[in-house]
């Protein structure tokens, strides 16, 4: 099972496995000799794009990652921010795009499993998850299958482990026909003093493996290893898709948190994610400036005859590697026995700064940890894509506009578009209430979850994920700024102040200069928006190679943002609460139809210019919302996004338990009706409040310098919007509630 049976390594072998000649030479330089096959596997996986961030690293370092709240920024398993009372929030977002395209249920399920481990490996108990999904066009033959599979996979894992899925984002576009996106976000809570890091500290300490046994699954996962060296039967033995086991993960979660409570027992810990045992062992050694020695004969295995290469690169799920204080091995094993988990000490921390791996009594790998962990850095060529000039030159208003009498029908059409329609079909399959902390669940702008302070009183966190990738396609810089702003606004309208964010940057191949240009523009937008809003990036993920047959996806820099709300009872939701409330619009109406849902639904186009974000106006609007929420002046608040004012007003009217109509005028101005109704200018919020509070509300808006226009009053069973739209709420509701189901059933 050892080196003896492994193939000879040559430059050619490296090449067939995706290693460039330059990388191969660099490896030879580090080792000073030809590597063993297992060693080649270590380099290949650690130097893969997924593990080493080789194409993105030099740009990521410019992100704003510091701030008063930041305890641990990027570089750890997840970001850690202070939320007061001696507590921290730990969160991150991860992609599981390719596995989900191959096997939607298991791919999505194991994506959720992976992000959960990233969070609890740091000592935090996961309290909420979100997911951001992108699928191909609804009419694509595979779309219903993929949607159903991914949604039930996310539910299957999250529901079982008992972490509520409180929100998310889902959209459709043909650019995802051959490459869907499944991004999973999880947030956990820990005590400030209870954070664990992935460090193999303390020479002589034991390396504890626990969780599931290692199998031959997912060996090709992280490294995209070409399989030319293997015959068909060995290929058959190596499923690239893993099956998730949420039950074992639940045991792993509870066991980890219990181990961590024992003072001084655990020195460091890291889950086995991409590149499995390799990445956890190498990264933990390198972070501590130490070495590790592993004996693979001691690794719990699911099947006989696994090679060292296979054991090191297996991506079997639900496994952890921990460093245990020497002399306390028995204590750790006894605790894991209670949880029925496989566990074994498989090695030790050394002072050699090398990763030494033995199998069958022989050394099969002996490599320095640091260069493996550091990986590579590329400054790949960049070029502004040629399509931009063409699409940006399109004038949305040059297309035929509906006659005034058809604007109601246009609204109905947009409401039933799966991008806009109610996502209830999705989130009804997610347990969004387990853990009795969901104050505002899916179906409003941001989710609000309760966190108990040590004294038992309640505070709240707001959570949201968002990204309009059409805007990013038209302008990656502006589009990314818009995504960050929309997240912060979604939090603000719910009463939560933005604190920090994580990202999941989904792009096509970095080997294409156009993609790299988009990526760098997007990062510039992310940095600028974060700096001006004062919201640091504390963790994130880059997913490249999202393309099939040379067709890349739209740049999709998904943003996951977390905010705080002192009293969750003061959370605000989007739907109108009753008759007789005053409805007003905060922000400015400008003609922004580029990349709009209107243009896509009515004319099949993704074109024009992305809306322009005025960050100063944005801040004035969100600040107004926060003050109004804090003073308890709001009955409802909803930000305007896809479908603009008309869609937002309809959502306010129909998304509560009881429909509430409204009679509204359009704000004064000379916009053409389609732009006034369906334009997607940012920094706008529709609020409602009791007439008795009108003066107070106007004062708050004036103090913050936010433009505000009174539009009308709630009541009745119809929604009237200006002179041309007048529809029963029941009719709007029917279009909106059935639009999504039509895609999947």
């Amino acid at each position: 099972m050892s080196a003896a049976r492994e193939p000879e390594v040559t430059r050619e072998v490296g090449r067939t496995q995706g290693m460039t000649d330059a990388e191969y030479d660099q490896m030879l330089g580090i080792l000073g000799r030809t590597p063993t096959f297992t060693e080649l596997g270590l380099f290949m996986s650690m130097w893969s794009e997924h593990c080493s961030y080789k194409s993105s690293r030099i740009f990521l370092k410019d992100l704003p990652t510091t701030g008063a709240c930041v305890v641990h920024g990027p570089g750890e398993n997840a970001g850690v921010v202070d939320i007061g009372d001696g507590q921290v929030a730990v969160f991150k977002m991860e992609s599981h795009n390719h596995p989900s395209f191959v096997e939607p249920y298991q791919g999505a399920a194991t994506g959720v499993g992976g992000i959960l481990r990233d969070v609890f490996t740091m000592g935090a108990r996961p309290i909420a998850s979100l997911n951001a999904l992108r699928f191909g066009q609804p009419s694509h033959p595979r779309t219903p299958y993929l949607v159903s599979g991914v949604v039930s996979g996310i539910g299957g894992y999250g529901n079982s482990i008992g972490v509520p899925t409180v929100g998310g984002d889902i959209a459709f576009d043909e650019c995802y026909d051959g490459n869907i996106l499944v991004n999973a976000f999880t947030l956990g809570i820990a005590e400030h003093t209870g954070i664990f890091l992935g460090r193999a500290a303390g020479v002589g300490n034991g390396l504890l493996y626990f969780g599931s046994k290692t199998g031959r699954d997912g060996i090709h996962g992280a490294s995209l290893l070409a399989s030319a060296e293997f015959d068909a039967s060995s290929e058959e033995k190596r499923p690239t898709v893993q099956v998730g086991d949420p039950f074992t993960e639940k045991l792993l979660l509870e066991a980890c948190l219990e181990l961590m409570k024992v003072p001084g027992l655990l020195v460091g810990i890291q889950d086995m994610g991409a590149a499995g045992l390799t990445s956890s062992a190498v990264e933990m050694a390198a972070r501590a400036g130490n070495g590790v020695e592993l004996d693979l004969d001691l690794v719990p295995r699911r099947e006989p005859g696994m090679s060292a290469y296979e054991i090191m690169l297996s991506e079997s799920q639900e496994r952890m590697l921990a460093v245990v204080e020497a002399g306390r091995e028995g204590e750790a094993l006894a605790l894991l026995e209670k949880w029925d988990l496989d566990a074994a000490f498989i090695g030790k921390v050394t002072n050699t700064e090398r990763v030494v791996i033995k199998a069958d009594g022989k050394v099969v790998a002996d490599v320095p940890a640091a260069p493996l962990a550091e990986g590579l850095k590329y400054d790949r060529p960049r070029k502004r894509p040629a399509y931009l000039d063409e699409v940006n030159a399109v004038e949305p208003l040059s297309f035929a506009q509906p006659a005034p009498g058809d604007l109601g029908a246009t609204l109905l059409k947009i409401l039933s578009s799966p991008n806009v329609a109610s996502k209830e079909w999705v989130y009804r399959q997610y347990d969004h209430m387990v853990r009795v902390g969901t104050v505002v669940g899916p179906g409003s702008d941001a989710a609000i979850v309760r966190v108990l302070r040590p004294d038992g009183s309640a505070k709240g966190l707001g959570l949201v994920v968002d990204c309009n990738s059409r805007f990013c396609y038209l302008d990656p810089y502006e589009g990314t700024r818009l995504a960050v702003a929309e997240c912060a606004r979604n939090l603000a309208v719910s009463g939560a102040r933005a604190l920090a964010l994580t990202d999941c940057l989904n792009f096509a191949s970095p080997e294409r200069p156009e993609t790299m240009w988009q990526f760098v523009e997007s990062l510039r937008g992310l940095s600028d928006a974060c700096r001006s809003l004062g919201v640091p990036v504390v963790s994130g993920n880059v997913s490249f190679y999202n393309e099939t047959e040379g067709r890349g996806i739209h740049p999709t820099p998904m943003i996951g943002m977390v905010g705080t709300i002192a009293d969750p009872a003061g959370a605000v939701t989007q739907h109108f609460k009753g008759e007789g409330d005053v409805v007003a619009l905060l922000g400015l109406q400008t003609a922004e139809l580029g990349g709009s849902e209107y243009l896509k639904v009515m004319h099949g186009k993704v074109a024009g210019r992305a809306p322009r974000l005025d960050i100063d106006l944005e801040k004035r609007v969100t600040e107004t919302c926060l003050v109004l929420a804090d003073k308890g002046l709001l009955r409802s608040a909803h930000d305007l996004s896809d479908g603009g004012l008309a869609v937002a007003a309809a959502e306010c009217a129909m998304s509560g338990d009881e429909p509430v109509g409204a009679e509204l005028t359009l704000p004064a101005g000379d916009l053409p009706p389609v732009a006034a109704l369906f334009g997607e200018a940012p920094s706008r919020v529709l609020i409602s409040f009791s007439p008795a509070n009108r003066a107070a509300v106007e004062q708050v808006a004036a103090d913050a310098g936010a433009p505000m226009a009174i539009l009308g009053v709630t009541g009745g069973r119809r929604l009237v919007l200006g002179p041309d739209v007048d529809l029963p709420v029941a009719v709007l509701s029917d279009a909106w509630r059935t639009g999504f189901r039509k895609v999947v059933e």
Partner: protein
Amino acid sequence: MRVAILQFPGSNCDDDTMHVVTRVLGEDGRLVWHREAQLPTGTDAVIVPGGFSYGDYLRSGAIAAHAAIMDAVRVFAGAGGPVLGICNGFQILCEAGLLPGALTRNASLRFECRQVHVRVEGRPTPFTAAIPAGRVLRMPIAHGDGRYINDDATGLGARGQVVFRYCDPAGGVRDEANPNGSQLGIAGVSNEAGNVVALMPHPERASEALLGEDGGRQIFESLRLSLTPGRGKGRAA
């Protein structure tokens, strides 16, 4: 009152139930690990909470039904002690033979998480004694295997063992109000003696106004009342 809340590997509403018993009601809750052979001394009631015991592998509740602690629960129930099963707890109690019938895949074949309404009916039980018959409670469900089946569902109702039925907000038992295809809209049942009760909806998620609903709290209040000496025999008016 001292309430024993069972914990199986994969239980995930154990902490939630504990939260409601201790923080919301201010009572004495004890988490009891499945490997225990005994309930804590002085246990007044047992709650089998929701979750995915043993991953719900094979059949929901099937593996947990054989846990060591279930023998102690059987003895406790046999002596008339009040036992409440919630969601997975309902499935476990059916699999353990402490309640009649079985729970299978929802008719929709999908996991369903949403608010439903249930009508309280049947003979008074320790968990419904303080709730007037016919009252409608709003509580969330969150399950994939909630379709109740019993080849004597009608007889069960006639004997007063149907404790909750899915209904519309006005109390009408209709197909449209039935979230999972349960026979005759059955959402919760009791054993013949009436001391073992279980339901698919989650009263512990509907016990605090902050979470949007507190009607479920009446079920726990009923238990408290029926454990008060000299109270709780009949049904509140």
